[in-house]
């Protein structure tokens, strides 16, 4: 079977800095890969390249064994520091928009469930620009999980979440993993998911090193 995600020799420069320098990575079904690395080592950059939001200078990115394509895009989910939400729409409208784009059946029901899961159902008619940091982060999580992606890229998903939400997130990640999703998780906050079985990789000098945790 194919890997869910495969990066081979990925190289990427930003400005005059060569940030990634031949990074290799594979993720298989049911795997959570925890990527660590110092601030500025290129974790976010790697996620952007792997998720097809940015083109690698050299090297290849494969999703489910194929080159990224528009068809495959609906099977991956990305959560970055930016929430990808419209400030002028309410929480519910934002999710509905994404549900429609992804062509979900039962859009309303799914959106309703999503909001309830992140405990935002009471604020669903509030404009997102009036959300607090953690509320926005929770809505962004709901957005990422909405179309049940098989590969997930999560860049510091625990940021801004209160204790209860953190636990919930860990619980979901566990379920997703059991359901066979592949997850690339970047987080400085090891405590939040210490019960999860993760494979650790470390990003340093533009390359990924297996197994090294700190």
């Amino acid at each position, binding site marked *: 079977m194919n890997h869910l995600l495969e990066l081979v020799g990925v190289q990427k420069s930003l400005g005059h800095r*060569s940030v990634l320098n031949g990074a290799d990575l594979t993720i298989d079904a049911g795997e959570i890969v925890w990527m660590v690395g110092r601030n500025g080592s290129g974790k976010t950059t790697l996620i952007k390249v792997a998720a097809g939001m940015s083109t690698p200078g050299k090297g290849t990115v494969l999703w489910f064994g194929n080159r990224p394509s528009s068809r495959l895009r609906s099977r991956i989910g990305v959560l970055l520091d930016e929430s990808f939400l419209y400030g002028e729409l309410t929480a519910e409208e934002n999710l509905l928009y994404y549900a429609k784009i992804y062509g979900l059946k039962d859009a309303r029901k799914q959106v309703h469930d999503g909001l309830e899961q992140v405990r935002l159902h009471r604020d669903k008619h509030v404009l997102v620009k009036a959300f607090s940091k953690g509320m926005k982060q929770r809505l962004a999580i709901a957005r990422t999980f909405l179309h049940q992606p098989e590969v997930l890229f999560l860049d510091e998903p625990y940021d801004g979440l209160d204790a209860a939400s953190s636990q919930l997130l860990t619980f979901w990640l566990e379920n997703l993993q059991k359901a066979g999703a592949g997850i690339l998780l970047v987080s400085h906050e090891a405590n939040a998911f210490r019960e999860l079985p993760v494979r650790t990789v470390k990003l340093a000098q533009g390359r990924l090193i297996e197994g090294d945790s700190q």
Partner: protein
Amino acid sequence: MKKWQWTLVALLGIGMIISQYMDFIASPPEAQMGNVVRIMYFHVASAVVAFTAFGVTALLGLIYLVRKKWIWDQLARVSAEIGVVYTTFVLISGSIWGDAVWNTWWTWDPTLTTTLILWFLYLAYILLRASIADRERAAKVASVYGFIAAIDIPIIHQSVTWWRGIHPNVITAQGFNMPPIMVFTLLFSFLVFLGLYSVILWISTMMAKDRDELSDLRELARNALAKYDERVGS
């Protein structure tokens, strides 16, 4: 540089001197304009280089989109930069010439207007590239933009026939409407100008390559320092 490259550059130098001689001494003054006509050799040759340069940008941009090879993109970029410089020359020499024969620096003749547009279009090209941090994205965006902007070149060339303006049109499908010696001088200056363009294109691209290697080296040094920090820190 290699020996044959030096030889070519030397030949170009000699060509430039000959070209100057023909412009200012060998070719005759014109019946109505007198000596002012000598601006033509500079003016028109600059226009030819500018058009060529932008054409090359458009073409190499498309090649880059298909091949994704860094070198095509760099050549396209440098070519556009040279093109802007030569368009500036066209505008300046034209204005000087215009002041002499039309008694005005500027008028809204279609050829002039579209040439000014060309200048703005490629100034924007340079700014666009410079303001995108992601190298691959900058290259792709510039390729697409360079292709679209090049549409202005045929428009300029056709402007004389589409709109009636006062800018002269002596090079037509029927040939050159001027004495053979002038035609020869003009063609020779085309040759020299295009030669100069090629040399600048080549050297600038080499420089870009060097700059790239330099930033790779700098990155190596950075990484080494980071490793050192880590060791000292812990």
